[in-house]
């Protein structure tokens, strides 16, 4: 019905224009009317099933109505992009009969939207790119059943059981293979404070993963050492990028020689550009914040009216099938016990990752303040 109203409205609103064209002497009217008709045809031509309210996924076969889905319909706010997690949500519907309507966006903007919506939120679940986004809205989440939480190592879930990690990414150094070999690279992040690296480093201070890494540094190294590291890095004039993707692109182009990023972005470039893309990941061998493993995770909103289905969705994403998808398709670390990461990744256990409880990574505010004080953030 709404669609019909829209179309009617659209036609009515074009009325005055057509009235204008009556005055016309140059036969422009025909062109204009043709344009309007074409536009209307295009805008309505795809038929009622593709109206805005018609459902989340046009790629799938014609969507069954909500009533046809035995599992019901869930609203998901996803800070992870459709290209990465859209396919697994489609599989979910095929396998479990749970339908999803997804609002795609950036993790931070969706988190702020959830904060603004509060208890009135239409969302059932929030799928976030980083622990920061999940932490910001944790008070809006409902605790997850213990059997779901138990599938994932303690390190990768909320200590209060309100959200759970689904996949992991490791902090790595991406380097240009034309300029450097692994032997040229230091064994830990401290090594990049050497003046020899001046102007050769790319980083992304506004990026949530980078900030989480700094939070880890504050926790492991202490406030003063972290400040000293940041200041020494600043003295090396690193080039600040907007996110991980532009850093990997810049390293590939030779704009900078190394970049501090999450591991999985490189694989997108290798898939697009082929193996000749002159950049590779380097896992820092010394244990420390430089090889932190971070999670993308999910939580169920307290305000959800269909929590059972929402829990079932989380459970599905932690199933061996879905976890294998993350390992193979997005090149991330599967977090559920028993699923192995892609063969060319250093296994989680060998990553020398620091054993840091997630609660230690919660103080984003302190990190942002420190980054401001050291001039890393404006």
């Amino acid at each position, binding site marked *: 019905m709404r669609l019909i109203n829209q179309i009617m409205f659209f036609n009515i609103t074009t009325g005055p*224009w057509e009235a204008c064209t009556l005055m016309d002497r140059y036969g422009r009217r025909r062109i204009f009317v043709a344009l309007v008709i074409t536009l209307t045809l295009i805008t309505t031509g795809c038929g009622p099933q593709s109206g805005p*309210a018609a459902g989340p996924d046009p790629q799938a076969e014609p969507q069954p109505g909500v009533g046809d889905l035995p599992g019901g319909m869930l609203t998901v706010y996803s800070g992870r992009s459709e290209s990465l997690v859209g396919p697994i949500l489609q599989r979910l519907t095929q396998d479990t009969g749970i339908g999803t309507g997804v609002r795609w966006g950036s993790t931070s903007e969706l988190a702020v939207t959830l904060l603004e919506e509060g208890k009135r939120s239409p969302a059932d679940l929030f799928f976030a790119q980083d622990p920061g986004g999940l932490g910001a809205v944790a008070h809006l989440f409902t605790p997850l059943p213990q059997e779901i939480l138990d599938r994932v190592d303690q390190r990768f879930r909320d200590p209060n059981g309100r959200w759970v990690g689904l996949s992991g990414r490791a902090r790595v150094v991406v380097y240009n293979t034309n300029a450097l070999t692994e032997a040229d690279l230091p064994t830990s992040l401290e090594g990049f404070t050497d003046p020899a690296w001046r102007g050769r480093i790319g980083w992304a201070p506004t990026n949530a993963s980078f900030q989480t890494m700094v939070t880890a540094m504050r926790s492991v190294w202490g406030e003063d050492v972290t400040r000293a590291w940041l200041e020494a890095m600043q003295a090396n004039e690193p080039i600040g990028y907007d996110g991980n993707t532009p850093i990997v692109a810049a390293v590939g182009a030779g704009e900078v020689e190394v970049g501090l990023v999450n591991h999985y972005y490189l694989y997108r470039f290798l898939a697009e550009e082929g193996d000749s893309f002159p950049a590779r990941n380097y896992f820092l061998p010394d244990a420390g914040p430089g090889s932190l493993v971070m999670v993308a995770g999910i939580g169920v909103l307290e305000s959800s009216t269909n929590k059972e289905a929402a829990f079932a969705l989380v459970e599905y994403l932690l199933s061996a099938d879905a976890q294998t998808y993350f390992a193979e398709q997005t090149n991330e670390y599967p977090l559920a016990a028993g699923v192995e990461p892609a063969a060319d990744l250093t296994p989680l256990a060998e990553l020398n990752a620091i054993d840091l409880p997630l609660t230690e990574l919660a103080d984003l505010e302190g990190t942002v303040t420190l980054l401001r004080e050291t001039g890393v953030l404006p």
Partner: protein
Amino acid sequence: MAEIGPLEAAGGLTAPRGLRLPRLSGQRLLVLWLPALLVTGAVVLPIFYLVIRASEAGTGTRALLLRPQTALILGNSIGLALAVTLASWLLGGGLALLTVRTDLPGRRLWAILSALPLAVPSYVGAYLLAAALGPRGLVQELLEPLVGVTRLPSIYGFPGAFLSLTLLSYPYVLLPVRAALHRMDPALEESARSLGHNGWGVLRRVTLPQLMPAMLAGGLLVALYSLRDFGAVSLLRFTTFTRAIYLQYQSAFDRSSAAALSLVLVALTVVLLALELRGRRGGDHYASTGAGGRPPALIRLGPWRWPALIVCALLVGVALVLPTVVLGYWLLRALEAGPDLTTLLLSTRNSLLASGLAAAVTVIAALPIVVLSARYPSNRSRWLDRLSHIGFALPGVVVALALVFFGLRGAPWLYQTLPMLILAYLILFLPQATGTLRPSLIQIPRQLEESGRSLGQRPLTVFRRVTLPLLRPGLLASAALVFLTTMKELQATLLLGPLGFRTLATEIWSAVSEAFFAEAAGPALVLILTCSLPMAYFVLRDQP
């Protein structure tokens, strides 16, 4: 137009000062004021939201606002807005003159092409610019074998932000100035010539003053666009106020500090609006009867046509051909993988639907405001017009959050539906409609309307039969402008659109943000193509 033809001779050059239309009766006043106030009320909603959120701010926010860095960032924003506006005046005004008033070879083609960069979203344009002009970008790659340049000077920071914003926003000046040139009465310039002025004198003393309202309105849009842009400044790493606001949301999920910072941006906007109002004084009195009149004689460029052509080619090359070529290269790779036409069609359809509705609704909403401020000038109506610009300086995410706040509380049944999304577009883009319509309305002599009235017609009939037909180029230009910018709007679409409402812009963003460049090419090219069709139509229509 036949019925007003005889009046053309009587249509004077300027309306004498002090001549006002008869006072509106209460009822007629209501017809204009009520919708105008409603629309303005919707547009200032975000301000209320910001005040509510900012009032919750604690000491941290005060410290954030008062640190010296804030002044620096404010200076960055102002400097960028000023520089981009000046450059856009030169580019937009110059191109409008070249393509409308000279015998530039291929001017119809240039007219279409030069307006098209407006169709390129800033997050795509800036990305491609950085990819091409970066220290080790495409241009360097081309130059290296020729002259051995291994590294271009960095374009990051001010130069890149300035360049990309100028290239993407000068059409805001170009379009209204073109519309104004088409409306202009050639008799004025001919009289000036006959009084012994040379070409430059005519340009300076007759043409430019008549173009002032359009230049100011367009310049204001450019300045506001530069203030609010996020895509280009973040990709090219120049910290403006808008970027600082986003960082508050991004890093700290801190709505109060972000609101406080946004209010500073609002204050800056108010200053800009007041400045434009001052500059506008004296420019409001030019009217002409150009509609249906003779086209003016074309200026012969002579040998100057070569530099003019080079400027056009360079501009179109950097702002349009370069992005299209890179996108085409990506598309080729996407075709290898097998294109996803269903999604592309659906997002195209959604984009057209949303943008078409937004254009129609916004232009209609703008009419009462424009008529009031242009035809019944008073301090009140002028400020109504000014207030309608507020939304344009606000980052999309702020407007979206304001509607989340009010929408869920006031109209939950509308929340995240198409009508609410259209309302967001209206708030964001209303100034584009008022800014383009107002100069067009001013150029229509009041005497024509008065004559209509004196012939016993009701004001609405006069408006319909006299004003609207003359206003049509302005109406269409403003609708086109709103259409184009809605096509590429991202933030409000993501947060307020119906669930699963994919548009071309969201598809592009989704692909680019995860480095699926090939997937971005299809929607981006369709976006540019779709926007070029109405553009081509206007140009062909205006330049027979």
